[in-house]
């Protein structure tokens, strides 16, 4: 079903609405998609933010984001991914090998980063899904790269049509774009609730919502967002005012533990720039005559991620100015900081995450230039490291508060 309006009885088979429902989905992500699967729907797993979900929705496929589980020890993935690569992707592969994603009817993965590209192929080889597609997302916004990206989406369309036996029509795709854009607008509205001081919704609750959205068909996610927004606006027992208002930047965070730790020691996480948070939702798709044009542009050019290279316009002497380059790459964070009244930034990256690692000194330079204190945390996607991180965050909060 591709529509922005759904009947309340159609959605989740749990009684509560809003935040409590969100929490339930967070704790049992697969419940709803397994119900849908039992009804005959096909569920397609996807990794990262580069697979074009509108194309799945338009064909009545249910997109389901593949996440890791930092609370589950990695015991199987060592056979196919070494220890010196992203621990999140090792966890993802581990869960796959343990059969935790056996309910998926297929997967779509993209070149979100080098290791995710390899994970796409390893997944296909070791788990042999009945449908798998890899999108070789380019790395720049060159005109040639944008044309290539559109060609890649045409290839994706062909394999989807072959898999479903249906034609992916322009009309269906346009409808899907609208409903996904609706979700993006609702997420913006949700994040607006974090602007007041104190914020109306905590960082932990926000992350639970985002995980829930990644576990539901888009229409159901939109309905859930409406319920959450309505509930949060009305409730009287929201987060307390705290001295630190943090922006968290970096690698994926799909477990509340890290945010919970920060919020338990005197901070409100009021904004993020991560792939399960604002980075995934803040850029809408332009409605173009050929919808693939808008999709190709959004998923390559509009998504703000360090994995896509953007060169700065050169000076008159044809040299590159460092601070201009930083403004070009990170200027949106200044806007976030101003709008969400941020007074400190946590840069966090998973160990072995090159995409984010290379950004750290430059981003710290940029934040310092706009008067925002920051700290860099590196972690290995496990609960065990939290105690040490807690001490460092505590010290940082003392400085900024």
């Amino acid at each position, binding site marked *: 079903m591709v529509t922005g309006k759904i009947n309340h009885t159609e959605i989740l088979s749990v009684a509560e609405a809003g935040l409590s429902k969100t929490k339930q989905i967070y704790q049992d992500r697969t419940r709803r998609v397994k119900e849908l699967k039992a009804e005959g729907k096909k569920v397609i797993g996807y990794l990262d933010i580069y697979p074009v979900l509108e194309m799945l929705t338009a064909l009545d496929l249910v997109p389901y984001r593949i996440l890791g589980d930092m609370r589950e020890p990695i015991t199987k993935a060592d056979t196919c991914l070494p220890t010196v690569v992203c621990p999140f992707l090792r966890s993802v592969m581990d869960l796959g090998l343990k059969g935790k994603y056996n309910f998926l009817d297929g997967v779509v993965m993209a070149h979100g980063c080098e290791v995710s590209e390899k994970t796409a192929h390893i997944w296909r080889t070791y788990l042999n899904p009945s449908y798998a597609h890899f999108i070789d997302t380019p790395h720049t916004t060159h005109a040639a790269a944008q044309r290539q990206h559109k060609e890649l989406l045409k290839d994706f369309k062909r394999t989807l049509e072959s898999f479903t036996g249906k034609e992916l029509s322009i009309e269906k795709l346009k409808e899907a774009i609208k409903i996904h854009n609706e979700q993006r607008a609702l997420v913006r509205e949700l994040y607006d609730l974090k602007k007041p001081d104190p914020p109306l919704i905590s960082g932990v609750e926000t992350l639970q919502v985002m995980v829930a959205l990644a576990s539901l068909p888009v229409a159901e996610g939109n309905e859930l967002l409406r319920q959450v927004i309505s509930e949060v606006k009305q409730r009287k027992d929201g987060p307390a005012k705290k001295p630190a208002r943090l922006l968290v930047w970096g690698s994926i965070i799909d477990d509340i533990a890290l945010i919970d730790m920060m919020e338990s020691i005197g901070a409100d996480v009021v904004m993020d720039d991560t792939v399960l948070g604002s980075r995934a939702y803040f850029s809408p798709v332009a409605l173009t005559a050929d919808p693939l044009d808008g999709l190709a542009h959004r998923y390559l050019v509009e998504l703000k991620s360090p994995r896509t290279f953007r060169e700065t316009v050169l000076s008159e002497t044809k040299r590159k100015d460092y601070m201009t380059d930083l403004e070009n790459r990170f200027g949106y964070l200044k806007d976030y900081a101003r709008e969400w009244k941020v007074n400190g930034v946590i840069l966090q990256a998973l160990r072995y995450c*090159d995409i984010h690692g290379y950004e750290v000194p430059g981003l710290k330079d940029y934040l310092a230039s706009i008067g925002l204190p920051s700290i860099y945390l590196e972690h290995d996607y496990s609960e065990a490291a939290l105690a040490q991180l807690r001490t460092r965050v505590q010290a940082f909060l003392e400085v900024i508060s």
Partner: protein
Amino acid sequence: MADGEKKRAINRLKTMYPLRALVDGMYERAVEASKEGKPVAWCMVNWWGGDAVLRAMEVAAIYPEDYGAVCAAFGTAPTYLAQSDSDGFPSHMCGYARNCLGYAARMKDLGEIPPEAPMGGMPKPTLLLSSGYFCDTRYKWFQALGRYLDAPVWVLEMPHPGVKESRMEGVREHNIKFLVEELREFIAFLENLLGKKMDRDRLAEIIDDTIEMNRVWHEVNELRKARPCPMHSRDFWSSMPASLYMAADPKVTADLYRQMYDEAKSMVDNHIGAVEEEKYRLAFAELPPWHSLGFFNQLAERGWNFVIESWAYHPPKPIDLSKVSDPLERVANLTYQYFSGYFEDAFNTGDWWGYFAHPYLEFVREYQCDGIMLHPLLTCRTATNHLMVVQDQLMTKLKVPSLIIEGDIVDLNLFDPADALRKAETFEETMSHYQKVRKEAGLAW
């Protein structure tokens, strides 16, 4: 051999030395060019298209990836690594990149090439030519150099065609088109930056010479299938940069590879091996510990001959381009052949992950290896991701065992040669065991 002179464990090819000198000399040539006010580019390996354009535009090209190996071999890398670490770049990142970032930081502080820089150092660049192929580091590193250099960066895009999707109808065509369009955009960028037009006839000539250079270099490596193998991996590693980095005019390089072919052919005809008594034939994956290459001499003394290395540093398999007239299309096809030519076997067996690991099966079978040394690099995802699959497939399909020696290409502290040698001694028994197993299984070696 003079009386009392110790016999070398590895017979080094005499024709290797001028090839190595060609690469070593590119740094001094770039320094000279810089002094004369000519443009200099720091480049990532880009599989010939970008190199050819730069050469046609008379830009002196040098390669910080190679310079990482140089600094490791000369012992200056620790200074640069420490500088990178203190500037806040995570220490788990690529050793080549950290070496270069540290070098650039030091050059910025001093206002000149650091005095300790080996081979004359790398002069300040006019531009940085990056690449989107293989790993994230190869464009993020050059972007991060903006902290120390005001040179613009151009990322030359390349597809990753070694996957199932690349076999779909029309995909090869749009990938080649993408490569050509990327080169055209790069040429436009370069013409604007340098304020001059490119000589397209010269470009066509360089591209033709590059195709021929790679063909000859491929033929040299084919000779290594002989028993005993005439060329050890140490000679390969010394010779490969001349092709991989386009260190000089490819016409000159092709002539040197022809001389190498003649020498290796003579050794094959006379049954002379790179190692005196070739007991074990080995493959090596991926990049070696540049700081500790003497380790291979110790293994050679035990009869270990390294006869083949990872496909990623080899030239593309020869391809007929006689029907492709446009020079950019010719070089795009050459690049694409490098990206896909080694994977045909993987495609045919539906081994999609094997697109990266599968060439080892082919190499180990064709070069009749008794074992493979896997060198997981603690700072390199690209060189490490697939090694477990390589190990698994070689044992499952060919009964060839793997020796895993962890280390790093640049960081000496991450490699323990004594421990590696102990493991190697034990591995000989394993190789001998599997020689019998393969014989019983009816395999050819």
